[in-house]
């Protein structure tokens, strides 16, 4: 028979978010305590983790639609203008027979941000409901969102390079459009949301509700 697993929280300790040192939390609520090794503020759990992450996830969902529906750039060539959305970029690569690149852009720009938002939503709901369901797998999902988020920046960089290279007046010009701004916002906001979510909450709930 095994009781509740020993956690730092149960031992009134906290591991520092920055350097990982295990520190004893002062008895008085832990306000204003700092890590003796790297001087970062100490918290047993990330402060207001669920509230912050929920707000950021909602904000990211709001930005996700215009990011995918609005054009991210306009290509003007010999008087003809053509607006490109993220999806039309994917379709361009597909129709020109460059399916590996179409896959890269689709995965990085459409699939990854949506997957990340859905995983975070699922984690937030399951923690709020006090779910005990498969904490190991849910922790793994969290680590996945942390690792893949940055790869959505690919399209932003591609647009920057296109804009910088193609400005030949009437001959050919590429301009960034507002879809790209929303897209950048989605990437930044989901990164912040993943950072504010505390995966230890997954374990707290499954420990607390253990019979």
């Amino acid at each position, binding site marked *: 028979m095994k009781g509740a*697993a*020993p*956690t*730092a*929280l*149960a*031992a009134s*300790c*906290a*591991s520092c*978010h*920055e*350097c*990982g040192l*295990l*520190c*004893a939390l*002062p008895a008085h609520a832990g306000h204003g305590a700092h890590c*003796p*090794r*790297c*001087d970062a503020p100490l918290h047993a759990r990330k402060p207001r983790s669920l509230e912050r992450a929920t707000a950021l996830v909602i904000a990211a969902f709001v930005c996700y639609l215009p990011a995918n529906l609005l054009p991210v750039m306009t290509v003007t060539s010999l008087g003809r203008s053509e607006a490109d959305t993220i999806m039309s*970029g994917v379709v*361009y690569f597909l129709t020109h027979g*460059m399916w590996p*690149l179409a896959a*890269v*852009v689709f995965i*990085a720009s459409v699939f990854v941000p949506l997957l990340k938002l859905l995983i975070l939503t699922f984690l937030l709901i399951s923690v709020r409901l006090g779910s005990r369901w498969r*904490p*190991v797998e849910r*922790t793994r999902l969290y*680590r996945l969102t942390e690792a893949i988020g*940055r*790869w959505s*920046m*690919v*399209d*932003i*960089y*591609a647009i*920057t*390079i*296109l*804009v*910088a*290279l*193609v*400005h*030949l007046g009437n001959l*050919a010009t590429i301009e*960034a459009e507002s879809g*790209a*701004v929303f897209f*950048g916002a989605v990437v930044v906001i989901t*990164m912040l949301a993943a*950072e504010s979510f505390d*995966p230890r909450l997954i*374990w*707290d709930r499954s420990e607390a509700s253990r019979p």
Partner: protein
Amino acid sequence: MHGAGPSCPVGTGTCCSRPPEVAIPLVACHDCDLLQRLPPLPEGGRASCPRCGSTLRKRPHEGLERTLALTLAAAVLFVVANSFPFLSFEMKGSITQTTLVSGVIDLYRQGKQELAALVLLTTVLAPMFQMLLLLHLLVPLRWNRIPWQLQRAFRLLRHAQVWSMMEVFMIGILVALVKLMGMATIVAGLALWSFVLLMLVLAGAVASFDPEEMWERVEALR
């Protein structure tokens, strides 16, 4: 319980700021908070949490020396990569050349200041701070001195690392190149190869940096 610090309920006393030299240090998993003992790792070793499987610590071979060497190389490559044009674009006799910073300036001129700031932060400023802070920490330690503002520099480095995205930028270059291939002639400049090397070298520096080893060395100097 009285006094400033409560006594440790685990009963080992090692979860306080200065564990005794002989004891096997107690750590808590950053993903599931499980308390556990982490015995010293051999070089190249890696420890995972038995409950949730996340990596507790990875100890690379000759971590700090390797990090310092790779960071020095990355700093040189960074200067080259940002000083010369990395792509030239030729269409019907007109040629445009671009550096990374000129791309950011173009975005800014088109009224996309937020994008310009984001690209500048993630491909120029964050990698630059990352390299400067690594050098700031590792050069004095190499000659057995404790770096100035050690704690602040370490925490800044952690933030710089999150926002430094050189490896993603490389894929962005690839996507842009393929898109332009049909349109015009693209000539890769010297800086493009520096970017490729920079990405690899910087990734190597990050992978071989073991903060725990750095703190051990600082502790030994005090």
